[in-house]
């Protein structure tokens, strides 16, 4: 009898120890750099190659010639490269806007931070457009009352930064008080509606350009900033923008 009990006890012990299930007891974590000491997988590389060749051929064919190297850091309140980008948006965007609405753009405003690279002296390719503007932002035209355009000029004066502009002429004194603000050579009228081209990032609240929020209307051109640059590069032979008097400080 006792053997029976002992056996039973053993069986219970055995069963209970068998119930000891597989459990997690240790975790090890590490980060492995994908460095150039790892050999390239030839099969993968061969698969990528036709795609890479196609893109490189497309991106690296010469579209124009740039006379010097331009950086967004060259210039105080306006820069050659910023002027170039804002002027391209006007030149390329306005015909599209006019054909759809019968109206012309009054001015362009982009953001200084949106110039993502330098433009180097020498041949200009589509790759330069991708470097200058890697994001897929598109041109939009915002209808603003004169009051908001005045806010826009105040924004530029208080930020003291070379945000790219086109067709707006702004002069500030040594304390950055606005001395004159002209569009099409005329002072801004509060009651008038202005067509201000920008990109959808800024329209949607980027760089805190809040004056875009109080608008009368908005028109999407479905035209990417980058594509406007590529189209312009394809159209002209030489890129030679300059720093001018569109936004300056006077004493």
């Amino acid at each position, binding site marked *: 009898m006792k053997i029976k009990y002992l056996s039973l006890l053993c069986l219970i012990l055995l069963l209970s120890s068998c119930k000891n299930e597989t459990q997690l007891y240790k975790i090890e974590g590490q*980060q492995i750099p994908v460095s150039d000491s790892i050999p390239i997988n030839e099969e993968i590389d061969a698969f990528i190659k036709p795609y890479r060749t196609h893109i490189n051929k497309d991106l690296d064919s010469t579209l124009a010639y740039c006379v010097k190297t331009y950086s967004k850091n060259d210039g105080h309140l306006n820069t050659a490269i910023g002027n170039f980008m804002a002027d391209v948006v006007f030149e390329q965007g306005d015909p599209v806007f006019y054909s759809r609405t019968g109206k012309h753009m009054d001015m362009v405003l982009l953001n200084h931070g949106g110039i993502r690279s330098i433009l180097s002296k020498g041949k200009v390719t589509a790759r330069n457009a991708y470097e200058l503007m890697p994001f897929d932002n598109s041109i939009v035209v915002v209808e603003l009352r004169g009051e908001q355009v005045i806010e826009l000029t105040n924004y530029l004066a208080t930020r003291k930064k070379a945000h790219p502009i086109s067709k707006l002429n702004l002069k500030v004194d040594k304390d950055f008080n606005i001395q004159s603000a002209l569009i099409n050579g005329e002072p801004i009228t509060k009651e008038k509606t202005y067509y201000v081209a920008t990109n959808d990032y800024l329209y949607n609240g980027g760089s805190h350009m809040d004056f875009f929020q109080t608008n009368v209307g908005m028109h999407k051109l479905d035209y990417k900033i980058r594509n406007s640059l590529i189209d312009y590069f394809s159209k002209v032979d030489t890129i030679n923008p300059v720093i001018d008097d569109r936004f300056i400080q006077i004493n």
Partner: protein
Amino acid sequence: MKRRLFIQKSAAATALVSLGSMGLQSFSSNPKKITILHTNDVHSHIDAFGPEDGRNANQGGVARRANLINSIREENPNTLLLDAGDIFQGTPYFNYYGGELEFKLMSMLKYDLATIGNHDFDNGIDGLYAQLPHAKFNFVSANYDFSNTIMDGQVKPYQTFVKDGIKIGVFGLGIELDGLVDSALSKETKYLDPIERSQDMTRILKEDEQCQLIICLSHLGYHYRDSEVKIDDLKLAKATQDIDLIIGGHTHTFLKKPTVVKNKIGLNTLVNQVGCYGINLGKIDFYFDDRHNKSADGVSILV
């Protein structure tokens, strides 16, 4: 009588001894190792950075990552390869081919699962849908409701895997789209509360699916210091339970090592993210056996 008792005793002793040795033989510790490999925010970086690059010269590249993954898989076939979103956007490969090459290469590298990042909507939800045939892996998202979109039925909240007898559950989480993705692109995708959905997921994966390892593939972002309300991976880890590992993305956070967070019930959850652009590969090894007692000894974390 006396003799009989002796026999009984010795028989019992023999039984115990033999049981003891049997125990040692049949209850071997049965060790198992599951390796989780992960990437996030690769952003179409198919080629390695060039030698001239100011920050990441000669780093990354899919062809190198492939060899690294292959060698890890050779060492341990019980490996899962996961991506935490923002596969798209960042190089002309995306602008030219719309994500086709990204998905094809991830399929060749045998990715097991991915979640959806905000930039994966950059060609619209239709653009994402159009590339799905090129992906031989699935997408999970527990907090994007796609039922009124073309993606309906294409994305599951979670997926389970069995590797070496260990059941692993992986669920996905995406970031709030409002203010980040143009509604013209995400269309009628609905964003649901990540914490509530995580609580549902962990209950289903632990109780219904009986998973022994639960992983969250998150594109919420690592940590938003300035906001109490904006959910991130660290806040998610604290507010939930039963998640062993949160693999993060979105914030392009380079961590020296995975972060250990005490969860809602005081147990450890691991949070990891490996920067961006395929510069790093994350590797987390989970060791199992039936000798250690998790509830008594806890889980040791070596990071």
